[in-house]
Structures are given as C-alpha cells and as structure tokens.
C-alpha cells in the first residue's frame, strides 16, 4: 500500500511520518506541495511542522497549495487522510474538518508525553484501537487550542466525531478536551499529538515499563493499511 506524505516548505515531521509508514508495513511516497498530483497513493498523511513558518495562521498558506487542493478533492471521494498537528491545522484551514486551532491557553509551546482517550475507533486511522482505550502520544505545539462554536461542538459530539480526547491534562485549553476529529465519513482524521513519534521502541514516549518505549502511534498507520485492505 502506498501512503503519501506531503512536504510543504517548513514541514518538519515528513521523514518521521515516512518512517512510521514503513514500520507499519506500508510504502511511504514523498509528495511535494507544488505538485497537483498525488501519484496515485492509497492514503495521505499531512505531517507536522511549521508550513510557511505558520505565519498568518497555522496551516493557512499551506491550505492553498496545489497538493492540498488535490487532497481536498480526493478526500471528498473517500481517500484516507491523516493530518498531524500542522497537518490538522491545514485540514481545518481547508475546511475538511470544522473549527479552528488557536494559540495555547498558557501561551507557551508545549512538548509532553500526552495521554489520550480513543473515543471513536470506527475511522480509517483508528480501527485497531479499542473504544475508550488510553494511549500515550507525544504532543508538541504552540497553537493547539481547539475552538468551535457551540453548535459545531454539539454536532461533533452528537455525531461521535471527536476521535481523541486529552486525558488527565488538557495541555492547551482545547474545548471539550478535543485532541482530534474526523469528518462525517471517517476517512479524514486530524489530531494535534504526533503518532509518528510513538512508533519505534527507544525513541517514543516513556511508559510504565521502560524509558521511551511507547509505540501506540504505530496503530494509526496499521489501521489505515487494514482499512485499505478491507476496502
């Protein structure tokens, strides 16, 4: 299975996302923001970073890129898309996911091992998790505060579109502790924490068992491979 990973100017975690795809058993395909073809990939990851320096608004300039426009078009036809951190911000700026992401409540960039609850395991990227499962994924962002109007929040909750919720600590003031969302169809998922940083023992978050041994992020990439096989 070919999983595309888009690189915008200022993208940082593209190589990490490619590594995660590889470790999960997929074939990573590097995609360039200025190309309007996604090279026929089976799914796409919009990785983390500071596309265009996150100037103006995070993800706003990248949302206009040719590759993003193509992602928007194909996502509407069901292409699985995962937006991580800056990728999530791009999805929000391209209106594939509702709401907005603003400056963290405490005003600082924060990097921490974050506990999350998987609220929805029906999406293309979460089908290998249990509903209600607690996982640990590194979080690192300066503008991860999720906001949306009351209506939108109600709709998201009613439709079970909150995929991940922060557990124990809400690190950025996100409304309803929202860490990640999906679209109606469940093929597009965006979240602030970084699953690609929890895929390899020795380089992930700390766990009860050993330092840096957490690999909960691997299931995101395995899930999409399973979804693609079953599709």
């Amino acid at each position, binding site marked *: 299975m070919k999983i595309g990973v888009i690189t915008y100017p200022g993208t*940082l975690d593209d190589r990490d996302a490619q590594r995660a795809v590889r470790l999960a058993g997929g074939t990573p395909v590097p995609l360039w923001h200025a190309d309007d073809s996604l090279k026929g990939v089976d799914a796409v990851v919009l990785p983390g970073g*500071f596309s265009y320096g996150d100037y103006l608004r995070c993800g706003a300039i990248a949302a206009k890129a040719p590759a993003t426009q193509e992602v928007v078009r194909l996502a509407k036809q069901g292409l699985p898309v995962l937006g991580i951190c800056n990728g999530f911000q791009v999805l929000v700026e391209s209106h594939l996911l509702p709401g907005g992401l603003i400056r963290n409540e405490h005003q600082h960039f924060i990097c921490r091992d974050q506990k999350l609850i998987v609220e929805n395991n029906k999406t293309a990227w979460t089908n290998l998790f249990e509903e209600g499962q607690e996982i640990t994924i590194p979080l*690192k962002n300066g503008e991860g505060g999720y906001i949306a109007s009351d209506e939108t929040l109600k709709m998201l909750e009613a439709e079970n579109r909150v995929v991940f919720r922060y557990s124990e600590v809400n690190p950025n003031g996100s409304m309803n502790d929202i860490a990640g969302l999906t679209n109606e169809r469940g093929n597009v998922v965006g979240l602030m924490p970084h699953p*690609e*940083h929890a895929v390899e023992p020795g380089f992930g978050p700390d766990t009860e068992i050993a*330092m840096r041994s957490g690999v909960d992020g691997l299931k995101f990439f395995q899930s999409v491979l399973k979804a693609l096989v079953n599709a």
Partner: protein
Amino acid sequence: MRVTNVDTVTQAFEESDKDQPWKELGLKEDEYQSIKDILGRRPTSSELAMYSVMWSEHCSYKSSKIYLRQFGEKVTPEMKKDLMVGMGENAGVVDVGEGLAVTFKVESHNHPSYIEPFQGAATGVGGIVRDILTMGARPVAVMDQLRFGAPESADTARVVHGVTAGISFYGNCLGLPNIGGETVFDKVYQGNPLVNALAVGVMKHEDLKLAKATNPGDLVILFGARTGAEGMAGVSVLASETFDSTGPTKRPAVQVGDPFAEKVLIECCLELFYAGVVAGIQDLGGAGISCATSELASNGGKGMRVQLQDVLLRDDSLTPEEILMSESQERMMGIVPKESLEAFEAIVNKWEVEYSVLGEVIDEDRLYINWGDKEIVNVPPRTVAHDGPVYNRPVAYPSYQDALNANSSSSLKRAENPAELAAQLLAILSSPNQADKSWVTAQYDKYVMGNTALAMPDDAGMVRVSEETGLGITIATDANGKYCQLDPQQGVKLALAEAYRNVAVTGAKPKAVTNCLNFGSPENPEVMWQFKEATQGLADGCLELGIPVTGGNVSFYNQTGDVAIYPTPVVGVLGVIDDVARRIPSGWQDEGNNIYLLGETRDELDGSAWAETIHSHLGGKPPIVDLKKEEQLAQLLHGAAIQGLIESAHDISEGGVAVAIAESCLRFNVGARIWLGDLIDRDNIDMTAALFSESQARVLVAVGREDDVKFQALCEARGVPCVRIGVTDKESEALEIQGIGTMQLNEVREGWAKALPELFG
C-alpha cells in the same frame, strides 16, 4: 533609490586627509593607522566599515588569540587522529566512524538577548545552526546554555520569558530537537544574561565543505534572505563594547529571525551540497558580507571581484557601508563553478530561495568591490579577515582573590538533627538552580526527527546518527561560574570534568570538546587573568583526558558598568556510542536494584549549592578535580554499558548525592531506601558532607541483583571506589534515608516541580 555619492578608492587617494569616524566605529588610533599602512592611503568609508567590523573583538579574537592557540598546541597525535577539521573553521569536524562525521559548536548571543530577549535568543540559535550547515552537515540537534539574573527580580522574568520563547520559536520551527542545556540563576547575570546556543550536525565524510574560494572564475553568489538594515554595526557596537557606550543608533540594532526562511535554506543547501554544485560556502553572521567575502577569499588564498549593487535589498536606501555590515539573518554565500550555475538555479528556484550573482573569484590577492562603476573597496583580503590586530593585554591577579579563597565554608553552621537535614534537602531541591527545569524544557521539541535517544531531564542529550546501525552521539555541556570565580583554572577543569562525566554516564565514549568562553572586559587586567587561567586549565585538562578542542567562541564585555559576571566558560563534550540501544537511563526504573555510589566523597562544600542555598555563601576553594579518576570512571561506565550491567546511572554534581538521589527517584517516580552509614565511615565525613558535598568523579548507579557480583568485580578491577548506599523500592513511592526519615515522593516532587512555574507563571 540607490545611493550615489559614495566614497571611492580614487577619492581616498585624492582627499587623503579626510576625517574619518574610526573611533565611533570602535577602532583604536593605532588600528586606524595600521589600516592606512596596509593600504598606503586612507581607507574608503566602505573599507573602514569592513576593517572596523572585522577587527572588532567579536570577529578578530584580538584579545583571546594568544591564549586560544594552546588548544591547537597542547595535543597529541592520538588526539588529532579523528579530527577531520580543527579550530579555525566555522566548526570542528570529528570522525565518528561508519563513514560519518559530526560537527558541533557553541556560540554566545548574550548582549542582543538582553536588549531584545526574544529575537536575540532566536537569532542566536539561527546563527549557530548556519555555522554547522556551512560545514556540509545536516543539523540534527540544538542545546542552550542560559544564565539569568536573580530569579525574583522583575527584569529577570522579562529576559527568561523572551529568551526561552525565542529559542523555542526558532529551534522548534527549524525542526531540530533540543536535547539539553543549562538554566542557572545568579544576580551576577542581572544586567548581562548569557545566552549560549549549541548546534550539532552530521555528514558523510565526502560531504565536508569548507569556506574557501580557491578556483578563479567561480561565481560568488549570495542567496537566502534579502539584505536589510538589521543589526547594523551590531557586531562592533553590540557585541564588543560595553552597553553604556552608544554607537550610531539610527538603524535598528537588533536582528529579526525568520526560522522558516532558515529551514528552507537548510533543505536548499543540503540539496546543493548533494548535487555537488557549490565549491565553497560561508554563512553570513556577524559582519555580514564583509566577513563572507574576505574570509572566503583569504581562506582560499585568492581574490574576488564583487558588484555590491547586485545584492538584493529589502530597502533601497541602504548605503554600501551598511550593506557590507548588515547582519540580516538567513543568508549564505556560495562559490559556484560557472558550469554548475544552471543546476544551482534549479535547486534554489525549487525552494523559492532568492539569489544573486555578485561577482567572481580571481587569481589575485585582492578583494575589489564596486558600487556601479565606482570602486569602493580594494584591499588584500587577508588583511581584513585574518591579519587583524593581536593583543597581549595586561593581566593582574585579582585584588579580591585571596580574601575570597580564604573565606571558606568550614565555619558555616551545619544541620544538627534529622529534621533540619531533611528541610535542607528540600530547600536545595526547590531552589531555582536545582529545581525541575521542565518549565523551560517543555517549550522545546525533543522528538522531531525521531532519533532522540536521551534528552531532558537526562544528564546528556543523545541522538542516533545511523538508523541502520544505531550509531549515536552524546553531548553534554557544563559551566559553573561560582567555581570559576573561586579559581578559574580549576573551575574550567571542573566544567570539563562534569561534561565529560555526563557523557560517560550515558554509556558513550567522550571524544571531543567545544567551548564558549563568557567573560567580562578584556581591558580589565583582572578579567584577563581569569581568561588566561581558564584557557590554560581547559587546554591542560583536554590534553590530560586526551580529547581535543575542536572549536569554540569567546564572548567578552559581559559586564554591567565595572562589574563583570563570574567567568563562565561553557564546556561541551561530544561522545560516541556504537548503538544507542545500549544507552543508560538516568533515573531508577526497576524494583530492588542495588544503588551504588562510585568514587570518593570529601568534605567539599565551598561554592556548593548547599552553601549558596542554605547560607548565601560563596567563598573558599572549589572541589578538587582529578581527571585521571574521571577517565577511570568513564571507562568503567563504558565497560559496564557494553556488558549491560547497569540499569541506570546519574552524575553527581551540584547539590551532591542528595540531589542526585532525589532526581533519580523523581525521574520515573520510583522510591528508594538509602543508608549513608558505610559511606560516612569509609570516607570519614559527616552527614552534611555525605549528602551535599560536591566532590568530583562520582556517579550514582543502579545495578540489578543478578549483575551485582560482576559489577563489583568490575569496579575492583578498575580501581574505582564503590559503596552500596541503598536499594530501589518501587512500591513505596517514598524516599527513605536512614538517619533522616521518610519522605513521600509527591512531597519531594512538589517544591522541586513548582519552583520555576511559581516564579515565571
């Protein structure tokens, strides 16, 4: 509108007696005279700008040069074996095996970070990363060494917030993991905080690049950000004169960083390197185009012809002098063979990086710079870049030194009962210098790139450099201004010893050294004495340990009025580990491990955290340093790591055994039962010394029961003193120290974790 009335070489001949503002530009009379002697005429105003900035303390190392030579001289052939590039280049390069090389360096951005903490610190990170990139390496991590004023002072909060946010902003946006650093508070840094930044990069041997223009006909290309009015005269006015001397202030004194532009520049440069289209490259930092043109030409033993009007500007009103001195960030100068121009253009266009061809390399010992059809610079490049003045400044033994050394901590009152000891331990642990640094470090991305094997709060940072084999590097930096104030020569060796030990406790083998020497004014003979002592100590220490200094940076004039900071030489040690999977954690993780204290403990409390926190005292003599013992200890740890005998190891430094124990507990929330009786008996010390002495060459290790016999045998064979002081107790969630009492870990954690958030919100 282009400036038209410029001072030309022709005019310099004709109007030979014109008054020039050499003084305002920071030149001394004899320096101005030597420029005239070199040129056989007065300099043009552009030449004057170039010489003044390149001959400033910051660029020319004129006060430090005679001392820095020792780093190149006190070396054995063995020490040079793996050194691919030594001092003098943008950064030293060390062969780490498997065809890979590592380059690393620390640099200061102290003065700009006081004036504008956010941008000052941000551009400090940007500058050091470009130095590393210039060597042909992909930058893979950063670290930051910070010294702030008294924590309670309102201005400290301004600086702390600005500096940490600036480093966070720039480093995170570049996608470089921050793997460690230092955060120290002391009132001596109140008006002069220290912001040092370290970067490390990795390359294949064949990708090594040098800042040289050797081939006549090659093009000189400036690329990256456009040139604007930033940091004008920043190098000479900001970095090398004291604050109260005011220079020309019309143009902004600060630089503004654009980490996004730098990230793009990094990727673009690496693509240029791999495509083999640049023959030489130099970053633009202090002294901007003046520095890049003269150094590239001088290093290559060639000359250059440059058209300054071809520099892409943000602001057309800049004068040629300003263009030559501008410190706009995120720029690079490449030397590109003509036949590679097309390939060069394709790559920079892909990354949307702007560039302009300024001129070409010539086979003549001359740097010619034109403004349109007017010649404004005509100089031998070497005289600008390398033949600046060299001073042997007066040194004087400080008048206060003997009294300071005589005022030892021996008369300070020691705790008399367990409750008092416990209270002292908690007080030290929650003092800003020993407290949890997460408030700072949580602002830094340590995960990006996916290769971070160790980072904050561990003793050293470690990153994997080969995904195939697991080959990794470790870096630790240390400096103790208080020790250096008591004895600069000993103090710098202590910093070296600590950094070396911090690398060793991770299981890596120390290999090379970098430094950033932060001192007061070199015009003060007492400061110069400190500098002389410190450089000698560092050179001697490195020779004794057999690891070379690969490069470094000197920052003088760190003082407010007449009051200098403590001498603060930051020492960074690089280590290599064959496989990062074998790294040793710093905290306790498992149940029932035996806890050993390696090394000897003396009653050494002068300059300690105990003396500072409990008695606000600084005086006496710093701890004894024995580098042979450090080496033995490092070899023991390395051996034990290879055999997999130790579960964790934590270096003992400020705050002594007490702080090391507490940190080991808090790392993974694992309790312990500790008894210090055997230690006290063996080393003939009291409880206060057992807990808080800062004796060197000591490490706390945890060993699984099954490896106990082997481990003890190893210590004996290597002659490293080893005493069992306790056992880990995971279930208890408490730290029990016999003779003091039992403290719940959440109690211990409370003050330690809250100290910085309470101060800085």
